């Protein structure tokens, strides 16, 4: 007579030691493989696109036109002296 019992969960569909999928589970999942991969590509393309777009946009920034404030030699010596005094 068969044993009719409570469900034992889907752990039985994996190798108890390596947790590798059994042939039965591979067959169950096979029909979904292609669609899952397409879904994976679509979902991962969103953050990847954001990252690439940001990189592309920031690379276009030109910093040459920003005026660097002119500092005279005398003022520089004075600042250096102040800095040395502190340390």
């Amino acid at each position: 007579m068969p044993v009719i019992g409570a469900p034992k969960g889907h752990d039985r569909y994996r190798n108890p030691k390596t947790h590798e999928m059994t042939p039965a589970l591979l067959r169950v999942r096979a029909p979904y493989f292609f669609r899952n991969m397409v879904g994976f590509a679509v979902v991962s393309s969103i953050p990847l696109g954001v990252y690439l777009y940001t990189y592309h946009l920031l690379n276009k920034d030109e910093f040459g036109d920003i005026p660097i404030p002119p500092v005279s030699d005398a003022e520089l010596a004075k600042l250096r002296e102040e800095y040395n005094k502190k340390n």
Partner: protein
Amino acid sequence: MIQAISRRAVALPKVACSVARVQPNRSVSFLKKLLFLDDGNNEGNEVKFYSWDESPYEDLRTRAAFIRAKALCPVTKKPVNFVCPYSGIPTHHDEQAWKNDTEYHEQKKYELLKKVNLYEHDLRSGRKFDEFIFPGEQAHDYMINMASWDSFFYTRDFNPMNTEFNMAAATKVLTYPLTIGSMFFKYSPYGLQPNGPVTIEGLRSLSALRYTLYPPYSKVKEAASTYKERPMRIFIVGAKMEAMLPGYVWKQFGYLFPDTKFEIHFVGPESYFDPQSRAFVVNDSNNGRAIVNRYDEQISLHHHTQYFHELYDMGDLFPFDPYLDVFFLFHPGFQTADEGHWNKSLKGLLESKCAVYVTGYHQTDILREYSWLRNHPLWEETDILMRQSKNIFGSTKLDLVDSNPTETFQANNEIFGFRGKRYHAIKK
């Protein structure tokens, strides 16, 4: 039959339990396995290969002798006397005929025959039959997926069917309840025309049955459905093997529709297997009433040992109701010796206006059944509910015809449906 198998499984020592092979290391990645659809199924190589003549099991040796006695060679039409070295089954008259059979070698029929051989030995090997450990009730909130045998077993929480031998043993018995179940199930895998095989008339019949199985929601339990005043009846006309299935196999069908009660009626002279005399017996006690085997509250099995037309003329089963009754004819063989009985039974089947589903062993077989119906005088009265198509829940176990050993078949491989016309035809 299962009881016989499981009894043997208990009695004999375990020969080889190759099912739960534990590999020490993860050798191939999951992605690679899926990409190449490698299911790791190399169990077939481990099973010892015997020729049927030298099989350790007596019944297989007897069967080989029977083939030699009855079958004719497909090439020379002489008695079979040569064992195909690929499959181990006697198939041809001599080696010359075997070599000349181009169809046999081109279509690789010997591979199918080899599977037949291996399946038969596997069933007798006395290994641990884990596939016959059936699950109980379906947990609430877990949907059953009927897309294929594999998804069904997974979502119903069966033991993993890792090898094709597991699949063959389990599907051979579960094909009968599941063929019925997959037809009525809310998310049935059979689509409506033109994408699927079900016609508009078929949808009408199925909708009626689903109205009973899935009644409209109502807060008051009594008012749920007025159609449930009696259990749903499933008639299996011309029952043979399926009448021997024990109740717990039919209970697997019951778990698909837990809120409905079912009476399963087996009709036909081979519909009651007497365990004492180990033969199909015709019941003449009870004044012709059915032998009832109540499995539990939900499922009861009724064995009627008369032909369907005799039962129909007796009128005990009236009234028939398309909302509550359905007929299944598992490999009826309309054009065999029983043709006279089928001729008479068809009238009753059509008059009842209930859905009738017919299965066949392979495509040629189902087309033969269909053409019989097509050429029958009552064809005018018939609506087709379902085009002939592959049965998703057919048995995966191959078997061979003893009188023609190169022909293999699978139980319930193909299916179609018909019904008596429910409306008045208008003449133009």
